[in-house]
């Protein structure tokens, strides 16, 4: 066996006395896809940031790249053959795909030399083709879906490394978190191709089945300890879950209770705007409806057209018979609450504490004697955070210090506490680890059991299949298929989504 391309020895990292990594040892072989799994807060991101030179490891840590010792903190990792795609992608919204990809290598031109646009476009198209995705290099990143954005970030890393160069390492931190399974499959194929060429991949992900399918070996982090490294072929989902959590996860998805109440609560008729055209559906009291499809089919816009203040060209939305005009105010009056897919951008004030973000719509209730009672506010935040098992249980900690799963629980707590009649969830478990995902889905299920109408807009076919009573599959802005209760399964969802694609293979819009 050839010698490892990347070796980490005795890597520890503590922040203010709290140790988040305990002498981690890790070695990655050339041509290997190495999975790194662990719950949020287990230290995965810290490890990735250390590789990228963001964090300095504690004394005693050692690192080798291609048998060369690397001085810590790491500087210019990509020049040493180590490229990293961070979870937050680091894209410039107002620039084009080509600019975002090209900027990583300085467009391979002098500082004052003109950028050859045609060459840039060609390079990006060629890179995209290899991933099996057609992406217009002229498109602005701000117009892309979450899935397309991660593709851009990956293309950039690929360009940094150059293609097929042996002995390179690419680190992907949750690259498929935003991708529907059908698309992530293509990405995983690309990873395999790269691995065959000798590039090592460190693949950080929550999606256990993906990790098991694509990786050669899997390392598991739990509370900062690297508890095990397993050959993927000899392992299975429950073993990995057990190693991650330290206990068995049990039945992962909550049981579906079918509501006896067949009253239609949310009615959407002829909704039209942008990609979405002439969409109609309804959802009953206590029902969970899933709306899914391939990326770019319009399902990502619907929640914002119903309740996010985004203008719509045409269409009617009714809740219990009363009209909702699409503004946030009228949606709130009708009892619609929206959980945005991008919580960093659309749900939080990132400069604030968990408490301030949690109590925002509840400040009226905390008003006592001409002021917000800070004691009541703290008490409210603490009891909510305990109820939704947010960790750490410190309301005055900045929101950015919480992991993705815990941030999502905070948004959900804020939302559910307003006793909504209709809950619109956009990618509710994106970037959330297995444990928190289970908790969040349970909360959604019990809200529906208590009579709320839930509509889930998700690209995670598995989640939709397990959670929803009824599933609508979108194709070019309208419903192409409906799965009734009893027909819902992940395979059906995938094949129907794919059929939409196959039927329109010649359509240039097909992603």
């Amino acid at each position: 066996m050839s010698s490892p391309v990347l070796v980490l020895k005795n890597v520890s990292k503590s922040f203010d006395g709290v140790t988040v990594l305990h002498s981690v040892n890790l070695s990655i072989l050339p041509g290997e896809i190495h999975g790194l799994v662990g719950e949020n807060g287990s230290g995965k991101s810290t490890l990735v940031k250390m590789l990228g030179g963001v964090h300095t490891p504690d004394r005693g840590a050692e690192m080798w790249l291609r048998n060369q010792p690397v001085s810590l903190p790491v500087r210019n990792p990509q020049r040493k053959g180590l490229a990293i795609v961070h979870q937050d992608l680091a894209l410039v919204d107002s620039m084009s795909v080509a600019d975002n990809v090209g900027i990583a290598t300085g467009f391979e031109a002098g500082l004052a030399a003109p950028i050859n646009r045609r060459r840039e476009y060609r390079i990006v198209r060629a890179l995209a083709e290899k991933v099996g995705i057609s992406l217009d290099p002229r498109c602005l990143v701000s117009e892309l879906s979450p899935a397309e954005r991660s593709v851009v970030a990956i293309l950039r890393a690929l360009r940094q490394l150059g293609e097929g160069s042996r002995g390179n390492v690419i680190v992907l931190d949750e690259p498929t978190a935003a991708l529907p399974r059908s698309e992530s499959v293509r990405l995983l194929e690309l990873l395999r191709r790269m691995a065959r060429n000798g590039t090592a991949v460190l693949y950080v992900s929550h999606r256990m089945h993906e990790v098991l399918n694509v990786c050669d070996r899997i390392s598991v982090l739990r509370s900062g300890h690297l508890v095990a490294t397993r050959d993927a072929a000899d392992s299975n989902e429950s073993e990995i879950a057990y190693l991650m959590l330290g206990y068995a996860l049990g039945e992962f998805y909550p049981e579906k209770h079918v509501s006896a109440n067949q009253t239609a609560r949310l009615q959407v008729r002829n909704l039209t705007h942008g990609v979405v055209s002439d969409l109609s559906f309804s959802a009953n009291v206590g029902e969970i409806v899933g709306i899914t499809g391939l990326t770019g089919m319009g399902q990502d816009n619907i929640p914002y057209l119903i309740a996010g203040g985004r203008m719509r060209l045409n269409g009617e939305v009714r809740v219990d018979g009363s009209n909702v005009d699409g503004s946030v105010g009228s949606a709130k009056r009708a009892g619609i609450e929206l959980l945005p897919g991008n919580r960093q951008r659309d749900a939080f004030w990132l400069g604030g504490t968990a408490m301030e973000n949690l109590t925002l719509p509840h400040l009226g209730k905390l008003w006592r004697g001409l002021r917000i009672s800070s004691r009541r506010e703290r008490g409210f935040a603490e009891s909510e955070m305990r109820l939704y098992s947010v960790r750490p249980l410190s309301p005055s900690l900045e929101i950015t210090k919480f992991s993705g799963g815990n941030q999502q629980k905070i948004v959900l707590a804020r939302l559910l506490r307003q006793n909504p009649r209709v809950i619109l969830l956009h990618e509710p478990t994106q970037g959330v680890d297995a444990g928190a995902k289970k908790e969040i889905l349970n909360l959604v299920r019990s809200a529906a059991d208590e009579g709320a109408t839930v509509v889930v807009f998700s690209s995670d076919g598995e989640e939709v299949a397990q959670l929803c009573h009824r599933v609508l599959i979108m194709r070019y802005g309208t419903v192409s298929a409906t799965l009734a209760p009893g027909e819902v399964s992940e395979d059906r969802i995938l094949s129907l989504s794919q059929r939409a694609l196959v039927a329109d293979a010649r359509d240039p819009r097909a992603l």
Partner: protein
Amino acid sequence: MRSKLSATGPWAVPLLLVILFIACSIAAPKTFASVANLRVMIDGQATIVLLALAVIVPLRAGDFDLSISAVMILTGVTLGVLNAHNYPLVVACFLAGLIGPVVGVLNGLLVVRFGIDSFIATLGTMTILGGLASLISSDALITSIPAGLTGFATHRFLGFGTPVWAGWIIALLLWYIFELTPCGRYLLFIGGNRSAAQLAGLRVNAFRQGAFIFSGTLSSVVGLLYAGLLGAVSPSAGTAYLLQPITAAFLGASAIKLGRFNVMGTLVAIYLLAVGITGLQLLGLQDWIAAVFNGACLIAAVGFTILFRRAASK
């Protein structure tokens, strides 16, 4: 490490004020550490305090208002001109005082409805208002300030003039709104993440518009007090009063409540600058030190805040 830093971080600027005050008192015991000097320092900052309070409201909601000092000057000039045309005091004050709310509405329309960047839109209104002040004053020093107003503005209560008390009372009011009411929290959310505030159901546009009307109205009130205090208004004095309040607002955001525009931090910042500059001048340095000290303090304070944060997260 971090607990120590985050404990001292918010109090670095107030601490600096105390240290500087003691140092100056020791260095110049006869001149600096006298009641008269203290009074002069506080009186001298009254206009800056009021303008800084005006500017932190839109800043907290995420918008610049660069037109504050231009509103102040135009109000003063208009008052003088109206008085020269024999308008009664109350009518003149009322009409001149209308300038602020009107400009606030206008700024709000430009920024909130049309979506022009607040820095650019208010830079524009500031320039226009400066031109109007020149126009109606024919570029001459306006000295026709009504005696009644002069009497009111220079009246002393417990040793301090009306503008000082006005500043402190408004500061207290704003502190209450910022720290203890939902309104203050909403402004923070709007300034911190407009799209999240919108989706959370806050009436973002109304708050931003309101913030501009507040800053405009307060600037007009300052204009009346300023005219009364000095008894004369120079139509070109506007820019001299623009940078100090904004400097103080940003310096204040690195004190007491880190990263947030807050009232107490802003007050501390203003007095820190005043003490530093007065002290240095009493030690024999010339007027140029004021500008250098202002700028250096701003960079140092904001720089230290960033260092604190970096140390806490690295």
